[in-house]
């Protein structure tokens, strides 16, 4: 082959490939394909396991990646439906019954109310119970189950029983026993919730888990501060006969010293009706109080 022919062939190769890439983009933009993310081509976990020919661990990791990507995409779009999440997690954990991270995170993805998660408590509990059956010595799984029973289902007795069972595992943490007791005596308080999230924060080595716990702790601060601020507002009303129009009114009256700020550093919003809300609740998605209606 002559030098000229070689150069021509190389140029043609590069140009054709580049043009085909552009064309594929154009076709995809002009004729978008229907979304396939909720479609499971094979739904039987047992069949997938048999078909893996012994490479079930690798396939479980691939399915777990698919779970994370699926959840991430839906979460980013504030989706209210996560149809394929539970079946995908079932396949993942059937392929590798010891993949503890899939039970822990998966049940959290399933449990959190939409749009933060699928809002499917029953599926979350079923998944974590499957995890406990397959990994009875993993105290983390008992903790996660108790956590879902406590915060998701408000089943304080069930949560107390689960924390108690988990605390009997030798590698378990001493605060699991404390949590079991708190479920029976003080389950609904912010203090108990803070105790739990603080322990999750201290215990986590995973960066994402730590950030999530930090965010929950910040939301608990808001849940605690908003009633306090509204109580200050209600003190102002009898003195002046009207609601304060701004934080400045409260500072001028001596009821507050500075403009109150939420944990993100943004000032709380004082509404005309005397209610206090956060400026951007999406930055504090787990707050129970102070969401603008």
């Amino acid at each position, binding site marked *: 082959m002559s030098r000229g022919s070689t150069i021509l062939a190389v140029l043609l190769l590069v140009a054709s490939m580049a043009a085909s890439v552009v064309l594929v983009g154009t076709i995809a933009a002009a004729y978008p394909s229907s979304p396939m993310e909720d479609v499971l081509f094979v739904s039987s976990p047992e069949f997938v396991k*048999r078909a893996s020919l012994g*490479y079930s661990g*690798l396939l479980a990791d691939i399915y777990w990646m698919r779970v994370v990507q699926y959840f991430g995409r839906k979460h980013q779009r504030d989706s209210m439906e996560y149809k394929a999440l539970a079946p995908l997690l079932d396949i993942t954990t059937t392929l590798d019954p010891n993949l503890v991270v899939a039970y822990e995170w998966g049940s959290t993805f399933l449990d959190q109310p939409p749009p933060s998660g699928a809002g499917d408590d029953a599926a979350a509990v079923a998944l974590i119970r499957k995890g406990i059956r397959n990994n009875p010595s993993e105290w983390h799984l008992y903790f996660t189950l108790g956590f879902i029973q406590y915060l998701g289902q408000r089943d304080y007795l069930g949560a107390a029983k689960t924390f108690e069972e988990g605390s009997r595992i030798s590698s378990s943490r001493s605060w699991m026993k404390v949590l079991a007791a708190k479920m029976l005596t003080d389950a609904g308080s912010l203090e108990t919730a803070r105790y739990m999230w603080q322990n999750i924060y201290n215990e986590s080595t995973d960066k994402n888990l730590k950030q999530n716990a930090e965010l929950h702790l910040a939301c608990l601060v808001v849940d605690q501060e908003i009633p306090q601020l509204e109580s200050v507002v209600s003190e102002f009303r009898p003195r002046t006969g009207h609601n304060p129009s701004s934080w400045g009114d409260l500072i001028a009256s001596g009821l507050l010293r500075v403009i109150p700020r939420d944990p993100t550093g943004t000032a709380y919003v004082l509404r005309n009706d005397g209610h206090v809300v956060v400026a951007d609740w999406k930055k504090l998605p787990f707050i129970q109080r102070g969401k603008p209606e």
Partner: protein
Amino acid sequence: MISRIRAIAFNTFREAVRDRVLYNLVFFALLLVATAPLLGEISIGVQRVLLINLSLSAISIFGIVISIFVGISLVSKEIEKRTLYPVLSRPVGRGEFILGKYCGLLGTLLVNTAAMTVGFYIALMLMTRDFTHSDANILIAVYFLFLEFVVIIGLSLLFSSFSSPLLSALFALSMFVAGTFAADLRAFAAMAHGPEGWLARAASYVIPNLASLNVITRVSHDQSIPAALVGYNTLYTALYATATISGAVLIFSRRDLK
């Protein structure tokens, strides 16, 4: 006899190492090992597990592909190129020829597996920056994978001793797939009665018991492998390989090569 087998084995090893397809497979396996940490980034909490699963699965898949596709061509290529006749015209028995070929490919696989394992451990060290007792446990899984290759090479040689390369590949591949279902077949045999039951039982013992040689998922979760299993698997592989190679020698000794 030993020196003649050694000479054939060495030549087989040299020929296989010169084979470009072999290099490409090893390169690809190493590439997979290198991409594992990147794949871990798009998942949560499974970086180490994923690296182990991906790397050992790659070692297994590429090893099996080499065992089958190089194994079936060991005899047929020699016949096709007519290089077998000068070898057999010397004082070399057909059995020695088969045994030499078997050992040569085994040596190739040993070197390949060792290279891929070194690549895997480098990737693991780069990721975890630590070396624990459980990391050493992974070597048992690699050893079991090598035992898997010992079985598959034996089967490839057995089939290629009487069949065409295409059919031999098909048979060997089918035996590998069936081998992963050996336990299911035994369970089916236990449920079946009469001739079907006997047939299923016989088939379940003829196909290789590969399920017990795959402990990748277990070592990825730091689960220990019992020493007894190492002993049983080694013994089973030795027996199965002896049976297949004996079969190959028997068939090849009676084969009309004219």
